[in-house]
Protein backbone atom coordinates (compact mmCIF):
# COMPACT_ATOMS: atom_id res chain seq x y z
CA UNK A 1 0.00 0.00 0.00
CA UNK A 2 2.61 2.54 -0.99
CA UNK A 3 1.53 6.09 -1.79
CA UNK A 4 2.58 5.54 -5.40
CA UNK A 5 0.19 2.61 -5.65
CA UNK A 6 -2.72 4.70 -4.32
CA UNK A 7 -1.99 7.60 -6.61
CA UNK A 8 -1.66 5.24 -9.55
CA UNK A 9 -5.06 3.65 -8.93
CA UNK A 10 -6.86 6.96 -8.53
CA UNK A 11 -5.07 8.35 -11.56
CA UNK A 12 -6.13 5.34 -13.58
CA UNK A 13 -9.78 5.85 -12.61
CA UNK A 14 -9.50 9.52 -13.53
CA UNK A 15 -7.85 8.66 -16.81
CA UNK A 16 -10.62 6.28 -17.78
CA UNK A 17 -13.27 8.92 -17.15
CA UNK A 18 -11.23 11.57 -18.88
CA UNK A 19 -10.93 9.43 -21.97
CA UNK A 20 -14.65 8.76 -21.89
CA UNK A 21 -15.33 12.50 -21.71
CA UNK A 22 -12.98 13.39 -24.52
CA UNK A 23 -14.46 10.73 -26.78
CA UNK A 24 -17.95 11.94 -25.98
CA UNK A 25 -17.13 15.59 -26.53
CA UNK A 26 -15.63 14.75 -29.91
CA UNK A 27 -18.35 12.48 -31.27
CA UNK A 28 -21.40 13.91 -29.55
CA UNK A 29 -20.57 17.57 -30.01
CA UNK A 30 -23.27 19.95 -31.19
CA UNK A 31 -22.41 22.55 -33.81
CA UNK A 32 -22.99 26.02 -32.42
CA UNK A 33 -22.44 29.20 -34.34
CA UNK A 34 -20.00 31.34 -32.31
CA UNK A 35 -21.87 34.43 -33.46
CA UNK A 36 -24.83 33.42 -31.25
CA UNK A 37 -22.68 33.93 -28.14
CA UNK A 38 -21.33 37.20 -29.50
CA UNK A 39 -24.83 38.55 -30.13
CA UNK A 40 -26.06 37.28 -26.75
CA UNK A 41 -23.18 39.20 -25.11
CA UNK A 42 -24.29 42.45 -26.72
CA UNK A 43 -27.96 42.18 -25.68
CA UNK A 44 -29.04 43.84 -22.40
CA UNK A 45 -30.09 40.48 -20.85
CA UNK A 46 -33.19 41.83 -19.18
CA UNK A 47 -35.08 38.72 -20.47
CA UNK A 48 -38.09 40.97 -20.98
CA UNK A 49 -39.39 39.31 -24.16
CA UNK A 50 -40.22 42.59 -25.94
CA UNK A 51 -38.48 41.20 -29.04
CA UNK A 52 -41.08 38.44 -29.16
CA UNK A 53 -38.62 35.66 -28.34
CA UNK A 54 -38.21 33.77 -25.08
CA UNK A 55 -35.41 35.77 -23.50
CA UNK A 56 -32.20 37.25 -24.89
CA UNK A 57 -30.68 33.86 -25.79
CA UNK A 58 -33.75 33.06 -27.89
CA UNK A 59 -33.46 36.28 -29.85
CA UNK A 60 -29.70 35.82 -30.31
CA UNK A 61 -30.23 32.39 -31.86
CA UNK A 62 -33.10 33.58 -34.04
CA UNK A 63 -31.32 36.63 -35.40
CA UNK A 64 -28.16 34.66 -36.24
CA UNK A 65 -29.80 31.58 -37.76
CA UNK A 66 -32.80 33.16 -39.49
CA UNK A 67 -31.96 35.72 -42.20
CA UNK A 68 -35.45 37.24 -42.04
CA UNK A 69 -35.30 38.31 -38.38
CA UNK A 70 -34.49 42.04 -38.20
CA UNK A 71 -31.62 43.17 -35.94
CA UNK A 72 -33.56 45.99 -34.32
CA UNK A 73 -36.15 43.98 -32.34
CA UNK A 74 -34.49 44.63 -28.98
CA UNK A 75 -36.56 47.52 -27.60
CA UNK A 76 -34.54 48.12 -24.40
CA UNK A 77 -31.30 48.07 -26.33
CA UNK A 78 -32.43 50.89 -28.63
CA UNK A 79 -30.15 52.04 -31.45
CA UNK A 80 -26.82 51.07 -29.90
CA UNK A 81 -27.71 47.39 -29.59
CA UNK A 82 -29.49 47.36 -32.96
CA UNK A 83 -26.33 48.67 -34.62
CA UNK A 84 -24.14 46.15 -32.79
CA UNK A 85 -26.41 43.21 -33.66
CA UNK A 86 -26.61 44.36 -37.28
CA UNK A 87 -22.83 44.56 -37.42
CA UNK A 88 -22.36 41.07 -35.97
CA UNK A 89 -24.95 39.42 -38.21
CA UNK A 90 -24.23 41.40 -41.36
CA UNK A 91 -27.76 42.72 -41.67
CA UNK A 92 -28.89 46.24 -42.53
CA UNK A 93 -29.26 48.66 -39.63
CA UNK A 94 -32.72 49.99 -38.93
CA UNK A 95 -33.73 52.57 -36.34
CA UNK A 96 -35.63 51.57 -33.22
CA UNK A 97 -38.39 53.81 -31.98
CA UNK A 98 -37.80 54.64 -28.32
CA UNK A 99 -40.83 54.24 -26.10
CA UNK A 100 -41.65 55.06 -22.49
CA UNK A 101 -44.41 53.56 -20.37
CA UNK A 102 -47.17 55.90 -19.26
CA UNK A 103 -49.90 55.03 -16.78
CA UNK A 104 -53.16 56.54 -18.03
CA UNK A 105 -54.73 57.31 -14.68
CA UNK A 106 -54.52 60.16 -12.21
CA UNK A 107 -56.98 58.79 -9.68
CA UNK A 108 -55.02 58.95 -6.44
CA UNK A 109 -56.60 58.01 -3.13
CA UNK A 110 -57.84 61.54 -2.49
CA UNK A 111 -59.29 62.03 -5.97
CA UNK A 112 -60.88 58.66 -6.73
CA UNK A 113 -63.86 57.23 -4.87
CA UNK A 114 -63.45 53.77 -3.32
CA UNK A 115 -66.46 51.50 -2.97
CA UNK A 116 -65.08 49.01 -0.48
CA UNK A 117 -61.98 48.28 1.57
CA UNK A 118 -60.02 45.50 -0.06
CA UNK A 119 -58.15 43.08 2.19
CA UNK A 120 -57.24 40.25 -0.17
CA UNK A 121 -54.08 39.28 -2.04
CA UNK A 122 -52.17 42.52 -2.62
CA UNK A 123 -52.06 42.36 -6.39
CA UNK A 124 -53.88 44.24 -9.13
CA UNK A 125 -54.98 41.08 -10.95
CA UNK A 126 -56.54 39.62 -7.79
CA UNK A 127 -58.16 42.89 -6.79
CA UNK A 128 -59.60 43.31 -10.26
CA UNK A 129 -61.29 39.93 -10.02
CA UNK A 130 -63.33 40.97 -6.97
CA UNK A 131 -66.27 42.88 -8.46
CA UNK A 132 -63.95 44.89 -10.71
CA UNK A 133 -61.70 46.27 -8.00
CA UNK A 134 -62.18 48.58 -5.05
CA UNK A 135 -62.46 51.81 -7.03
CA UNK A 136 -65.77 53.22 -8.24
CA UNK A 137 -64.21 53.82 -11.63
CA UNK A 138 -63.90 50.41 -13.32
CA UNK A 139 -61.24 51.71 -15.71
CA UNK A 140 -58.82 53.20 -13.22
CA UNK A 141 -55.51 52.12 -11.76
CA UNK A 142 -55.92 49.87 -8.73
CA UNK A 143 -52.61 50.88 -7.22
CA UNK A 144 -51.36 47.52 -5.86
CA UNK A 145 -48.18 47.67 -7.90
CA UNK A 146 -48.30 44.51 -10.01
CA UNK A 147 -46.74 46.52 -12.85
CA UNK A 148 -44.04 47.82 -10.49
CA UNK A 149 -43.10 44.25 -9.53
CA UNK A 150 -43.07 43.08 -13.14
CA UNK A 151 -40.60 45.67 -14.42
CA UNK A 152 -37.32 43.83 -15.17
CA UNK A 153 -35.37 47.10 -15.16
CA UNK A 154 -36.66 48.55 -11.87
CA UNK A 155 -38.04 51.62 -13.63
CA UNK A 156 -41.31 51.90 -11.72
CA UNK A 157 -42.11 52.87 -8.14
CA UNK A 158 -45.37 52.99 -6.28
CA UNK A 159 -46.04 56.44 -4.86
CA UNK A 160 -47.64 56.85 -1.42
CA UNK A 161 -50.72 58.28 -3.13
CA UNK A 162 -51.34 54.90 -4.73
CA UNK A 163 -50.25 55.29 -8.36
CA UNK A 164 -47.13 53.99 -10.12
CA UNK A 165 -44.47 56.48 -11.23
CA UNK A 166 -42.33 55.66 -14.24
CA UNK A 167 -38.64 56.58 -14.25
CA UNK A 168 -38.23 57.60 -17.89
CA UNK A 169 -34.45 57.20 -17.81
CA UNK A 170 -34.58 53.56 -16.70
CA UNK A 171 -37.68 52.68 -18.70
CA UNK A 172 -36.70 50.85 -21.89
CA UNK A 173 -40.19 50.49 -23.31
CA UNK A 174 -40.14 46.71 -23.17
CA UNK A 175 -43.88 46.58 -22.49
CA UNK A 176 -43.95 44.03 -19.68
CA UNK A 177 -45.98 46.35 -17.46
CA UNK A 178 -48.47 46.85 -20.27
CA UNK A 179 -48.98 43.09 -20.56
CA UNK A 180 -49.37 42.59 -16.81
CA UNK A 181 -51.85 45.39 -16.10
CA UNK A 182 -55.32 43.81 -15.80
CA UNK A 183 -56.99 47.07 -16.79
CA UNK A 184 -54.78 47.72 -19.79
CA UNK A 185 -54.22 51.34 -18.86
CA UNK A 186 -50.44 51.47 -19.42
CA UNK A 187 -49.62 52.91 -22.82
CA UNK A 188 -46.26 53.11 -24.56
CA UNK A 189 -45.70 56.69 -25.62
CA UNK A 190 -42.86 58.38 -27.42
CA UNK A 191 -40.56 60.32 -25.07
CA UNK A 192 -41.12 63.39 -27.21
CA UNK A 193 -44.85 63.52 -26.44
CA UNK A 194 -46.00 66.94 -25.34
CA UNK A 195 -49.33 66.23 -23.68
CA UNK A 196 -51.00 63.12 -22.41
CA UNK A 197 -54.47 62.26 -21.14
CA UNK A 198 -54.21 60.82 -17.64
CA UNK A 199 -57.46 58.92 -17.76
CA UNK A 200 -58.82 55.74 -19.32
CA UNK A 201 -62.46 56.05 -18.27
CA UNK A 202 -65.06 55.38 -20.96
CA UNK A 203 -67.86 56.22 -18.50
CA UNK A 204 -70.22 59.05 -19.36
CA UNK A 205 -69.21 62.49 -18.12
CA UNK A 206 -71.66 62.58 -15.22
CA UNK A 207 -70.55 59.17 -13.94
CA UNK A 208 -66.87 60.05 -14.31
CA UNK A 209 -67.33 63.18 -12.21
CA UNK A 210 -68.95 61.07 -9.49
CA UNK A 211 -66.22 58.44 -9.50
CA UNK A 212 -63.09 60.55 -9.72
CA UNK A 213 -62.29 64.26 -9.57
CA UNK A 214 -59.35 63.89 -11.97
CA UNK A 215 -61.11 61.96 -14.72
CA UNK A 216 -61.72 62.85 -18.34
CA UNK A 217 -65.45 63.60 -18.84
CA UNK A 218 -65.25 63.68 -22.63
CA UNK A 219 -66.39 67.30 -22.90
CA UNK A 220 -64.15 67.98 -25.91
CA UNK A 221 -62.71 71.29 -24.69
CA UNK A 222 -59.16 70.11 -25.45
CA UNK A 223 -60.16 68.89 -28.92
CA UNK A 224 -61.73 72.26 -29.74
CA UNK A 225 -58.64 74.10 -28.47
CA UNK A 226 -56.17 72.08 -30.48
CA UNK A 227 -55.37 73.99 -33.68
CA UNK A 228 -53.78 70.94 -35.31
CA UNK A 229 -56.68 68.51 -34.84
CA UNK A 230 -54.55 66.05 -32.91
CA UNK A 231 -57.19 65.24 -30.30
CA UNK A 232 -60.36 63.25 -30.88
CA UNK A 233 -63.10 62.30 -28.43
CA UNK A 234 -64.11 58.65 -28.57
CA UNK A 235 -66.16 56.72 -26.00
CA UNK A 236 -66.26 59.71 -23.63
CA UNK A 237 -62.46 59.84 -23.56
CA UNK A 238 -59.95 62.16 -25.18
CA UNK A 239 -57.26 60.52 -27.34
CA UNK A 240 -54.15 62.37 -28.49
CA UNK A 241 -52.66 61.40 -31.83
CA UNK A 242 -48.98 61.52 -30.94
CA UNK A 243 -47.66 61.76 -34.50
CA UNK A 244 -49.59 64.99 -35.22
CA UNK A 245 -49.02 66.41 -31.75
CA UNK A 246 -45.24 65.92 -31.79
CA UNK A 247 -44.74 67.02 -35.37
CA UNK A 248 -47.01 70.04 -35.59
CA UNK A 249 -47.28 71.59 -32.13
CA UNK A 250 -44.84 74.18 -30.82
CA UNK A 251 -46.51 75.16 -27.55
CA UNK A 252 -49.56 73.17 -26.51
CA UNK A 253 -52.69 75.10 -25.53
CA UNK A 254 -55.14 72.20 -25.29
CA UNK A 255 -54.78 71.46 -21.60
CA UNK A 256 -55.58 74.99 -20.39
CA UNK A 257 -59.33 74.52 -20.85
CA UNK A 258 -59.69 71.10 -19.28
CA UNK A 259 -62.29 71.30 -16.46
CA UNK A 260 -60.80 68.36 -14.53
CA UNK A 261 -57.12 68.69 -15.57
CA UNK A 262 -57.22 65.19 -17.01
CA UNK A 263 -55.05 66.22 -19.95
CA UNK A 264 -51.71 67.63 -18.90
CA UNK A 265 -48.30 68.43 -20.36
CA UNK A 266 -45.95 65.48 -20.20
CA UNK A 267 -43.47 65.58 -17.32
CA UNK A 268 -41.83 62.23 -16.74
CA UNK A 269 -41.05 60.92 -13.30
CA UNK A 270 -43.80 62.68 -11.35
CA UNK A 271 -47.22 61.60 -10.26
CA UNK A 272 -49.78 62.12 -13.05
CA UNK A 273 -51.81 65.19 -12.20
CA UNK A 274 -48.96 66.92 -10.34
CA UNK A 275 -46.98 67.93 -13.38
CA UNK A 276 -46.60 71.54 -12.21
CA UNK A 277 -44.33 70.59 -9.29
CA UNK A 278 -40.60 70.76 -9.83
CA UNK A 279 -39.25 68.08 -7.51
CA UNK A 280 -40.16 64.40 -7.96
CA UNK A 281 -42.20 62.96 -5.12
CA UNK A 282 -40.60 60.61 -2.60
CA UNK A 283 -41.67 56.97 -2.77
CA UNK A 284 -43.18 55.06 0.13
CA UNK A 285 -39.83 53.64 1.20
CA UNK A 286 -37.98 56.93 0.87
CA UNK A 287 -40.35 58.96 2.99
CA UNK A 288 -38.34 60.78 5.63
CA UNK A 289 -39.78 61.91 8.93
CA UNK A 290 -40.20 65.65 9.47
CA UNK A 291 -37.26 65.67 11.90
CA UNK A 292 -35.02 63.90 9.36
CA UNK A 293 -36.03 66.41 6.67
CA UNK A 294 -35.20 69.33 8.99
CA UNK A 295 -31.84 67.73 9.83
CA UNK A 296 -31.11 67.25 6.12
CA UNK A 297 -31.99 70.87 5.36
CA UNK A 298 -29.81 72.08 8.25
CA UNK A 299 -26.91 69.94 7.06
CA UNK A 300 -27.14 71.17 3.45
CA UNK A 301 -27.47 74.81 4.63
CA UNK A 302 -24.41 74.20 6.80
CA UNK A 303 -22.45 72.85 3.86
CA UNK A 304 -23.52 75.76 1.64
CA UNK A 305 -22.44 78.29 4.30
CA UNK A 306 -19.05 76.61 4.72
CA UNK A 307 -18.50 76.52 0.95
CA UNK A 308 -19.45 80.22 0.66
CA UNK A 309 -17.12 81.05 3.58
CA UNK A 310 -14.23 79.23 1.90
CA UNK A 311 -14.89 80.96 -1.40
CA UNK A 312 -15.09 84.30 0.37
CA UNK A 313 -11.79 83.66 2.17
CA UNK A 314 -10.10 82.39 -1.02
CA UNK A 315 -11.08 85.28 -3.27
Amino acid at each position, binding site marked *: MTPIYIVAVVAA*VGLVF*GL*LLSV*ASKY*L*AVETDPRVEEVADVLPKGQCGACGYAGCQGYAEAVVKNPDVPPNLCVPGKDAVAAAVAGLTGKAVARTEPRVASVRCAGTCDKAVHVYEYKGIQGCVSANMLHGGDKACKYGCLGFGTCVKSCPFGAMKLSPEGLPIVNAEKCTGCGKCQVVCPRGIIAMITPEAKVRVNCSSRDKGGDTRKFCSAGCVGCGACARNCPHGAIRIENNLAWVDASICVAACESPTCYAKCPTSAIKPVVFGVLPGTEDSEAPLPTR*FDLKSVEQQERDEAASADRAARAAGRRGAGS
Partner: protein
Amino acid sequence: MNEYVLVFLGAAVVNNYVLTRFLGLCIFFGVSKSLSASASMGVAVVSVMTITSVIAWAVDAWILVPLGLEFMRTIVYVVLIACFVQLLEIVVKRAMPTLYGAWGIYLLLVATNCIMLGVPLLNAEARYGFAKSVVNALGSGAGFAFALVLMAGIREKMQYADVPRSLQGLGITFIVTGLLALAFQGFSGMIPL
Protein backbone atom coordinates in the same frame (compact mmCIF):
# COMPACT_ATOMS: atom_id res chain seq x y z
CA MET B 1 -39.32 -6.34 0.13
CA ASN B 2 -40.00 -4.70 3.47
CA GLU B 3 -36.40 -3.57 3.79
CA TYR B 4 -36.48 -1.84 0.42
CA VAL B 5 -39.68 0.02 1.24
CA LEU B 6 -38.18 1.09 4.55
CA VAL B 7 -34.98 2.27 2.84
CA PHE B 8 -37.01 4.24 0.28
CA LEU B 9 -39.27 5.86 2.84
CA GLY B 10 -36.37 6.53 5.13
CA ALA B 11 -34.46 8.38 2.45
CA ALA B 12 -37.48 10.19 1.05
CA VAL B 13 -39.51 11.25 4.06
CA VAL B 14 -38.16 10.31 7.46
CA ASN B 15 -34.56 11.36 6.92
CA ASN B 16 -35.27 13.81 4.13
CA TYR B 17 -31.96 15.03 2.74
CA VAL B 18 -32.97 18.67 2.63
CA LEU B 19 -35.25 19.13 5.59
CA THR B 20 -33.74 16.68 8.06
CA ARG B 21 -30.11 16.34 7.01
CA PHE B 22 -29.76 19.94 5.67
CA LEU B 23 -27.91 18.99 2.50
CA GLY B 24 -28.42 20.52 -0.93
CA LEU B 25 -29.62 23.86 0.37
CA CYS B 26 -28.12 26.06 -2.33
CA ILE B 27 -30.22 24.45 -5.04
CA PHE B 28 -33.18 24.34 -2.70
CA PHE B 29 -33.18 28.10 -2.19
CA GLY B 30 -32.13 28.99 -5.69
CA VAL B 31 -34.54 26.92 -7.74
CA SER B 32 -37.64 26.95 -5.53
CA LYS B 33 -38.71 30.36 -6.82
CA SER B 34 -40.74 28.80 -9.61
CA LEU B 35 -42.80 25.62 -9.56
CA SER B 36 -41.97 24.54 -13.12
CA ALA B 37 -38.24 25.01 -12.59
CA SER B 38 -38.47 23.05 -9.35
CA ALA B 39 -40.27 20.18 -11.01
CA SER B 40 -37.73 19.85 -13.82
CA MET B 41 -34.86 20.25 -11.35
CA GLY B 42 -36.36 17.52 -9.18
CA VAL B 43 -36.52 15.15 -12.14
CA ALA B 44 -32.92 16.02 -13.02
CA VAL B 45 -31.75 15.30 -9.49
CA VAL B 46 -33.54 11.96 -9.25
CA SER B 47 -32.19 10.70 -12.56
CA VAL B 48 -28.64 11.96 -12.07
CA MET B 49 -28.49 10.71 -8.51
CA THR B 50 -29.67 7.21 -9.36
CA ILE B 51 -27.20 6.73 -12.20
CA THR B 52 -24.39 8.29 -10.19
CA SER B 53 -25.12 5.97 -7.29
CA VAL B 54 -24.96 2.95 -9.58
CA ILE B 55 -21.62 4.00 -11.02
CA ALA B 56 -20.31 4.89 -7.56
CA TRP B 57 -21.38 1.51 -6.22
CA ALA B 58 -19.66 -0.21 -9.13
CA VAL B 59 -16.40 1.67 -8.61
CA ASP B 60 -16.58 1.02 -4.89
CA ALA B 61 -17.35 -2.69 -5.17
CA TRP B 62 -14.99 -3.55 -8.04
CA ILE B 63 -12.05 -1.19 -7.56
CA LEU B 64 -11.85 0.44 -4.16
CA VAL B 65 -12.82 -2.38 -1.81
CA PRO B 66 -10.82 -5.19 -3.48
CA LEU B 67 -7.74 -2.95 -3.49
CA GLY B 68 -8.33 -1.78 0.08
CA LEU B 69 -8.64 1.87 -0.92
CA GLU B 70 -11.85 2.78 0.90
CA PHE B 71 -10.27 5.90 2.32
CA MET B 72 -9.96 7.33 -1.22
CA ARG B 73 -13.70 7.17 -1.65
CA THR B 74 -14.37 10.90 -1.32
CA ILE B 75 -11.83 11.96 -3.92
CA VAL B 76 -12.76 9.25 -6.37
CA TYR B 77 -16.45 9.99 -5.99
CA VAL B 78 -15.89 13.70 -6.59
CA VAL B 79 -14.03 12.95 -9.82
CA LEU B 80 -16.69 10.47 -10.83
CA ILE B 81 -19.60 12.86 -10.23
CA ALA B 82 -17.95 15.74 -12.04
CA CYS B 83 -17.15 13.58 -15.06
CA PHE B 84 -20.54 11.97 -15.16
CA VAL B 85 -22.50 15.21 -14.98
CA GLN B 86 -20.34 16.71 -17.73
CA LEU B 87 -20.95 13.59 -19.82
CA LEU B 88 -24.67 13.86 -19.19
CA GLU B 89 -24.66 17.49 -20.27
CA ILE B 90 -22.94 16.57 -23.56
CA VAL B 91 -25.38 13.72 -24.22
CA VAL B 92 -28.48 15.75 -23.34
CA LYS B 93 -27.33 18.71 -25.43
CA ARG B 94 -26.98 16.41 -28.41
CA ALA B 95 -29.99 14.17 -27.95
CA MET B 96 -32.62 16.43 -26.33
CA PRO B 97 -31.89 20.11 -27.04
CA THR B 98 -35.20 21.36 -25.63
CA LEU B 99 -34.56 19.62 -22.33
CA TYR B 100 -31.08 21.14 -22.32
CA GLY B 101 -32.61 24.58 -22.85
CA ALA B 102 -35.12 24.01 -20.04
CA TRP B 103 -32.49 22.86 -17.52
CA GLY B 104 -29.88 25.41 -18.54
CA ILE B 105 -27.45 26.12 -15.75
CA TYR B 106 -29.30 23.84 -13.32
CA LEU B 107 -27.70 20.69 -14.67
CA LEU B 108 -24.23 21.88 -13.72
CA LEU B 109 -25.54 23.12 -10.37
CA VAL B 110 -26.67 19.57 -9.70
CA ALA B 111 -23.05 18.47 -9.95
CA THR B 112 -21.86 20.88 -7.30
CA ASN B 113 -24.62 19.86 -4.95
CA CYS B 114 -23.47 18.16 -1.76
CA ILE B 115 -26.35 15.70 -1.97
CA MET B 116 -24.69 14.17 -5.04
CA LEU B 117 -21.63 13.34 -2.98
CA GLY B 118 -23.56 12.59 0.19
CA VAL B 119 -25.80 9.84 -1.12
CA PRO B 120 -23.09 7.57 -2.58
CA LEU B 121 -20.90 8.12 0.48
CA LEU B 122 -23.76 7.25 2.83
CA ASN B 123 -24.58 4.24 0.68
CA ALA B 124 -21.03 3.01 1.02
CA GLU B 125 -20.87 3.64 4.75
CA ALA B 126 -24.08 1.75 5.36
CA ARG B 127 -22.66 -1.03 3.18
CA TYR B 128 -25.75 -1.24 0.99
CA GLY B 129 -25.75 -3.78 -1.80
CA PHE B 130 -26.55 -2.82 -5.37
CA ALA B 131 -30.35 -2.98 -5.01
CA LYS B 132 -30.45 -1.04 -1.75
CA SER B 133 -28.10 1.62 -3.13
CA VAL B 134 -30.40 2.17 -6.07
CA VAL B 135 -33.48 2.30 -3.85
CA ASN B 136 -31.75 4.69 -1.46
CA ALA B 137 -30.71 6.95 -4.31
CA LEU B 138 -34.21 6.91 -5.80
CA GLY B 139 -35.66 7.68 -2.39
CA SER B 140 -33.32 10.55 -1.65
CA GLY B 141 -33.88 12.06 -5.08
CA ALA B 142 -37.63 11.71 -4.67
CA GLY B 143 -37.49 13.26 -1.20
CA PHE B 144 -35.41 16.15 -2.52
CA ALA B 145 -37.83 16.71 -5.37
CA PHE B 146 -40.75 16.52 -2.97
CA ALA B 147 -39.28 19.12 -0.62
CA LEU B 148 -38.34 21.33 -3.56
CA VAL B 149 -41.86 21.27 -5.04
CA LEU B 150 -43.39 21.92 -1.62
CA MET B 151 -41.16 24.93 -1.15
CA ALA B 152 -41.86 26.23 -4.64
CA GLY B 153 -45.60 26.06 -4.06
CA ILE B 154 -45.26 28.03 -0.83
CA ARG B 155 -42.94 30.60 -2.36
CA GLU B 156 -45.20 31.25 -5.31
CA LYS B 157 -48.04 32.04 -2.91
CA MET B 158 -45.74 34.19 -0.79
CA GLN B 159 -45.13 36.50 -3.73
CA TYR B 160 -48.52 38.08 -3.04
CA ALA B 161 -48.06 38.26 0.71
CA ASP B 162 -47.12 41.46 2.49
CA VAL B 163 -43.66 40.45 3.74
CA PRO B 164 -41.75 43.06 5.80
CA ARG B 165 -39.05 44.64 3.67
CA SER B 166 -36.13 43.38 5.75
CA LEU B 167 -37.29 39.76 5.39
CA GLN B 168 -38.16 39.80 1.72
CA GLY B 169 -36.44 37.22 -0.45
CA LEU B 170 -34.13 34.86 1.39
CA GLY B 171 -35.13 35.94 4.89
CA ILE B 172 -38.69 34.71 4.81
CA THR B 173 -37.63 31.68 2.75
CA PHE B 174 -35.25 30.55 5.46
CA ILE B 175 -37.95 30.99 8.08
CA VAL B 176 -40.44 28.96 6.04
CA THR B 177 -37.84 26.25 5.42
CA GLY B 178 -37.24 26.08 9.14
CA LEU B 179 -40.96 25.63 9.73
CA LEU B 180 -41.08 22.88 7.09
CA ALA B 181 -38.12 21.16 8.75
CA LEU B 182 -39.91 21.46 12.06
CA ALA B 183 -42.91 19.71 10.54
CA PHE B 184 -40.71 16.93 9.21
CA GLN B 185 -39.26 16.49 12.71
CA GLY B 186 -42.49 14.72 13.43
CA PHE B 187 -41.06 11.73 11.58
CA SER B 188 -37.88 11.59 13.61
CA GLY B 189 -36.95 8.23 15.03
CA MET B 190 -39.45 6.25 12.95
CA ILE B 191 -36.72 4.75 10.79
CA PRO B 192 -33.35 5.06 12.43
CA LEU B 193 -30.54 6.65 10.41
